[in-house]
């Protein structure tokens, strides 16, 4: 077949010689991958914001999800084909490649859904699938760390950016549908507050979320270092925003981890007796919320500033980054840890920035070398009035 003579197909076949999975027809993947990608629109996410949810709503949502996810998964699969062969044979990279291929297989093989019962099966399958893909980022991170010398920095960054951005989209669509599915079924049993539209919380209180995250990070810091700075939250503490809590939490935890860690280490380095507190200020603008996180962690050296948003770049000590000996299970278990593989593999800031930018927000860092850092996070409220499109 002509298809088999294509270099990509040859590479694919060669690579699969190293994996244990067989796939019955890779032509399907190409078919789906070649379809046009429809950006996620906020309108779609907020379509069912008026309670109660009807069966028609749910079937509509699943139809959208079913049309979107396989295309996106197929594109992820294909994106691996252009990696250098040696990179593709790295066990971590190969593992993620297979995970995506399997996810595609499972989801695309669902027939069009016409009943609520079938929809529930789909939703549960989707939920399981999301769980299976949860460690994609640390795995890829590990893989690329091991493949550092085989790819140029820009190529690597491009691939990872695409992967993460696309993954955010996949999860937003998938989680939104699963949440809606549960919401539909729960609303019959209890009177649900109408603050949730699927995975979006329309009255999220940034101040309380910041306090929770700061508390969590402070605890982690105490566990890891035996000491931790205090924090306070001021500004427009009563303002609310419409956002996906898990995104918000992820971003702020990453930023707070950096702030707490830097403060403790700088105190140690400069023989400071007391840790200056972390200052968190919430501000509300027109349609978005601003968060400023200020620390006195010594700042980032000017030479390092251009690297902080790069992947696989980290100031963590070498012995903490060599997790090659540790099993992935251990890595995952430590995932939330402050000294865990995420922090060491240098993915926190670039990912946080991608998440922040996904719905039109931004993340900026100002470093005052020898003193501390100011981080300016801006998150746009996910509201129907502002039509934004994301990939």
């Amino acid at each position, binding site marked *: 077949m002509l298809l088999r003579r294509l270099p990509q197909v040859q590479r694919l076949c060669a690579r699969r010689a190293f994996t244990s999975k067989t796939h019955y027809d890779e032509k399907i993947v190409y078919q789906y991958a070649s379809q046009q990608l429809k950006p996620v629109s906020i309108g779609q996410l907020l379509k069912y914001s008026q309670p109660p949810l009807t069966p028609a709503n749910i079937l509509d949502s699943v139809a959208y999800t079913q049309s979107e996810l396989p295309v996106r998964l197929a594109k992820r699969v294909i994106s691996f084909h252009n990696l250098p062969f040696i990179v593709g044979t790295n066990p971590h990279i190969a593992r993620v490649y297979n995970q995506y291929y399997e996810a595609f297989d499972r989801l695309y093989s669902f027939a069009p859904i016409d009943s609520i019962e079938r929809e529930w099966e789909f939703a549960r399958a989707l939920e399981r699938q999301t769980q299976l893909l949860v460690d994609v980022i640390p795995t890829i991170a590990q893989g690329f760390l091991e493949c550092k010398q085989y790819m140029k920095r820009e190529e690597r960054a491009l691939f990872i950016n695409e992967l993460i951005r696309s993954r955010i989209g996949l999860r937003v669509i998938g989680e939104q549908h699963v949440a809606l599915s549960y919401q539909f079924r729960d609303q019959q049993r209890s009177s649900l507050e109408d603050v949730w539209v699927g995975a979006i919380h329309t009255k999220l209180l940034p101040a309380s979320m910041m306090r929770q995250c700061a508390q969590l990070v402070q605890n982690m810091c105490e566990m890891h270092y035996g000491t931790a700075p205090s924090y306070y939250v001021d500004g*427009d503490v009563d303002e609310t925003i419409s956002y996906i809590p898990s995104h918000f939490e992820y971003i702020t935890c990453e930023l707070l981890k950096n702030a707490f860690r830097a403060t403790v280490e700088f105190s140690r380095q400069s023989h400071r007796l007391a840790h200056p507190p972390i200052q968190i*200020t919430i501000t509300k603008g027109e349609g978005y919320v601003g968060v400023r996180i200020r620390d006195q962690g010594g700042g980032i050296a000017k030479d390092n500033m251009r690297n902080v948003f790069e992947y696989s770049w980290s100031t963590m000590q070498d012995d903490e980054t060599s997790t090659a000996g540790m099993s992935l299970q251990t890595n995952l278990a430590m995932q939330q840890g402050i000294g865990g593989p995420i922090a060491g593999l240098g993915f926190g800031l670039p990912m946080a920035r991608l998440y922040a930018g996904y719905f039109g927000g931004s993340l900026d860092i*100002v470093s*005052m*070398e*020898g*003193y501390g850092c100011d981080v*300016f996070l801006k998150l746009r409220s996910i509201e129907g009035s502002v039509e934004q499109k994301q990939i």
Partner: protein
Amino acid sequence: MLPRQTAHTLISCQLLSQVRRYVTVRSGRNLQQKFYENRILDRYTAQEPKKVTLRQLVLFGRQLTEDKLIASANYVRGELPVRLAHRISDFQYLPYIAGTNPHLKTVYDLYWRAFDEFRKLPVVKTLQDNRRFCDAVRRNLLEHSQVIPQLGMGVSECAGLVAPDEIDRFMSQMLVSRISRRTLAEQHIALSQQFDEDLRSHLGLSVDESFDQLNQAPAGFATQRIGIVRADCSAIQIINDSALRVAELLEEAHNLPPGAAPQVLVEGHTDAMFMCIPEHFSYIMHELLKNSMDHVIRRFSERLDESAVDGAASGPLFPPIRVTICSSHADIMIRVSDQSGGIDPDVLPYIWSFTQPVKAKRLHNFHAIQRMEAKPAEASSLSPLVSFGFGLPMSRVYAKYWGGNVNVHSLPGYGVDAYVQLPRLGNVVENIGARRAQAHGD
């Protein structure tokens, strides 16, 4: 057209202003004449400016002898026409419609005359020559104090006629070169004055006795001076001085009782010192603190009215402005943090531009003043509440000149964080930008 002899008589008999009018009437012919005179300019634009660092300026003055002073005079004598030539060339590459704007044309003519004058100055060989040279430079500095308002007016009138980016680049280039020429000039004048003072006291001459006869310093005479540069400038001192001055200005403008203006609290590395030209740093701090204080006062203006009703204020009316100094090995960074409510989102994209339409209205305010030197000590006849839309971009020009920068982060609904970064050690070369790019086809 007047015959040549009559023209000469006119120039020799009449006052400068009348000559100017004569020149303007003939401006069309002069422009075309200048086209051919440009060959002179080309000789100078072909040369690169010889840039200096602050350290070099300081080291120069460590052992200031007559010979060195004269060398300095000749360095400045050579540099000024070269740097002016590059800027005149910039004017020439502006779109025609902008170049014929009367205000820009005024500056163009001023620069041409200065260029002509400087390039014809004789070599400086003696102390007396140097004094004459300094007088000529001082006169020129004074005459050019109208440049900034003229540029401001010209640029505001050209908004809409020329692409904003191009005019912004032009303005920045003009301003940074102006700073560089004035810095060299003022440094030399200051060194000369200081040298003369020291010489005077060395010879036992009183202040009133003139120098007219003294053309040569005694052999081996040397002094230690560094002119307008300060090698160990205390950041906190300048910040506090600026804060006091700004508070006074704004208390008067807003009709506040003395001491009621927002407090400026300085924290961080309060003992930080760095090498700088204090006037430049002072300008930047003055502008930033003025912005912060003014907007804080406006934001909380209801509190003003309330306190007026109550009588004596029970506590500070306004949230303080916090200034944090941070000193690292090579840089000093100053953060000015206020609760002014943030920058108006309509203006925010344009705060660094001189020329966006939203600014053009404010630049028009330049019509009300004759002179501006962009110095902190300037007393303007206008209230500080009148905005030219100029302070921020000019601050950045000053900062970038020695390799620093000014940045601003707005927290809407809350306040503004402004960051000034400056090199500490004085080992960064003047940043006066690239010369004018050659036109295609050269």
